[in-house]
């Protein structure tokens, strides 16, 4: 599947930019500098939007398309930001046969975002992940470090409401 590209406004801070410039300076003369720069930039920003990739391309003196090509080749790179609450729905085999797809549908309907997207208010992001090793609880999802098991789609709205109200 092709990676989703964030269309949320970029909100990088001067501190983050300073860190990125230091990263670029450190790798500038290395061969294959794009990979480590992207990895470390993702640690700073949480994802790799066009603004960040442009800074890397400019800093390393390579084309932006080359940087983008690398960022879309490796699954470790994300082009969308994570929300305050990152929801991860397991689509591993066990969860899938137990109806995880319906759970995922209920979440996308509630939040209005697709997997690999973030809500405009920065509250929730959604990921479809592979087995997290809790097959006995299938279908499973996590919200940050909180695990929810034996889910049915009807429960989704209630769980999300807790986070929206700040009760969680």
């Amino acid at each position, binding site marked *: 599947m092709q990676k989703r590209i964030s269309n949320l406004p970029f909100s990088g801070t001067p501190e983050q930019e300073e860190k990125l410039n230091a990263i670029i300076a450190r790798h500038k003369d290395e061969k294959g500098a794009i990979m480590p720069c992207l990895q470390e930039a993702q640690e700073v920003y949480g994802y790799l939007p066009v603004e960040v990739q442009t800074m890397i391309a400019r800093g390393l003196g390579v084309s932006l*398309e080359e940087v983008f090509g690398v960022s879309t080749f490796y699954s470790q790179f994300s082009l969308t930001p994570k929300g305050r609450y990152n929801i991860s729905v397991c689509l591993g085999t066990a969860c899938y046969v137990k109806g995880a797809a319906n759970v995922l549908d209920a979440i996308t309907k509630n939040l209005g975002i697709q997997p690999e997207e973030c809500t405009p208010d920065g509250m929730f992001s959604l990921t479809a992940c592979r087995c997290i090793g809790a097959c006995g609880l299938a279908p499973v999802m996590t919200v940050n470090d909180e695990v929810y098991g034996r889910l049915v789609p009807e429960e989704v709205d209630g769980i999300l409401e807790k986070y929206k109200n700040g009760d969680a």
Partner: protein
Amino acid sequence: MNMVNVKINGMPLSVPADYTILQAAKSAGIDIPTLCYLKDLNEIGACRMCVVEVKGARSLVASCVYPVNEGMEVYTNTPKIIESRKMTLEMLLSVHNKSCLTCKRSQNCELQALCQELGVEDSTSYEGAMPDSTYDDSTLHLVRDNSKCILCRRCVAACANQHVAVIGPNSRGFDTHIGCMFEQPLANVACVSCGQCIVACPTGALTEKDQCADVLAALSDPEKYVVVQTAPSIRATLGECFGMPVGTNVEGKMVAALRRIGFKKVFDTDFGADLTIMEEAHEFLGRVQNGGVLPMITSCSPGWIKFCEHYFPELLPNVSSCKSPQQMTGAMIKSWFAEKEGIDPKNIVVVSIMPCTAKKFEIHRDDMEGAGEGIPDTDIVLTTRELGRLIKLCRIDFTALPDEQFDPAMGESTGAAVIFGSTGGVMEAALRTAADVLEGRSVENIEYKEIRGGAGIKEAVYKIAGMDVKVAVVSGLKNANEVLTKVKNGEADYHFIEIMCCPGGCVNGGGQPIQPSSVRNFTDLRALRAQALYTQDENMPLRKSHENPLIKKAYEEFLGEPGSHKAHELLHTTYVARSRY
């Protein structure tokens, strides 16, 4: 030369030690098929079409990148090899948009040709899911249809070789596709419109934006007075569209064909080239004498201009303000010619035949309406390939045509203009005129051989009227980047630089006929095509732009003198800085 002995299909052969198996086989008259390989440009051994058997090797090897060695035994046509190549083709076909009947590259498609030659019988062997494919027609000059892309990376290599590198492989596996940064359409990135990607493409994934229909519509409009002009290099390449040998000069037949299509006048952009020299040489002398910005850089090549705007905006003051020959010719048609003939310039449609896709962009630039607001200098640009198709569409028997002459109103030109089509030509033409002007006499030695030939960067110093004129001639934007970086850093002290966007100049432009890799890898297309122009130059009675009687008349009757107010209004233009990212 260090030689090694090899056997190909049992036949002993002695070949240079630095040859690949592909080259060795070619030297024995065996053409190994390739899809991704383009000599000096894309040598990645990825497509697996060129596989051969090497005795003792574990598996089939990619002959395009595999070097020969002493005692090597190679087989090029065993059943195992043929099966492997066929399977490669069948797998490519499984995700290919097989609309060959309506594809512009039909009969000039390397994938189609290989399927024929290798006898692929079943194009549906691996039918199944098809990847999503983009169709990008956002720019003025080309269309990318990824449903016909075979991911050979030739376009990516061609773009990188131009130091532009705005296209590349995105995503991975089944989703891999060629695209731009953040999946932007090509129009939103710093593409220079050179079209080198198109001539590299083995299939119909990249094609010029075809405007033959616009030309036919204009021709059938009774209100319109439709004229055509042809660039210097077209006469040296158009014959290839009709199976003629590379480097055949078809000027006479080209003119005859255009007349039969129905153009009211068939003009020669060479006239505009001579005019360019008058203006550019004058501008150069002015800069030298008045302490203007040097080095001055030529401005005929719109791909180069766009490159400069995106990548070296700080050097825009160095670029000559002269319009390109195409735009000068167009402006003169819609002013001088229109006035003389009593035609309303608003009703004139200027069609130009160009070796270049960037010309399609150039005519829409700002400050390209010399004859008045709303009157573009040129209306429609067709590439050499489109003209080839138009001639076929009009059912004209090209090879049987008689040789005809350009219409005299703007058909007279000199050898200086003809060589514009090759790298070094503009500089040589300018020097011929500048030397005469500065020395105040007719200088006899007019062949500047140091700046001819295929090298990407050529330098020379010429003594003219006691002054050492330092010139550089550059073609290909990678080379331009190298030279301009030096100029920017103050490490070069040229007076005058000619830059052509495409490697080798216009004879190798992005709008020229596409030769398959089997020809391109083993033929110096640029040299053969350029030779046709230099031969014509040699045989012309007039070889200096300022000796063109039509040019003299244009200045006497209409323009005044080079660099006059009127000349500036009509023949000069402006540039804008553009962003790189």
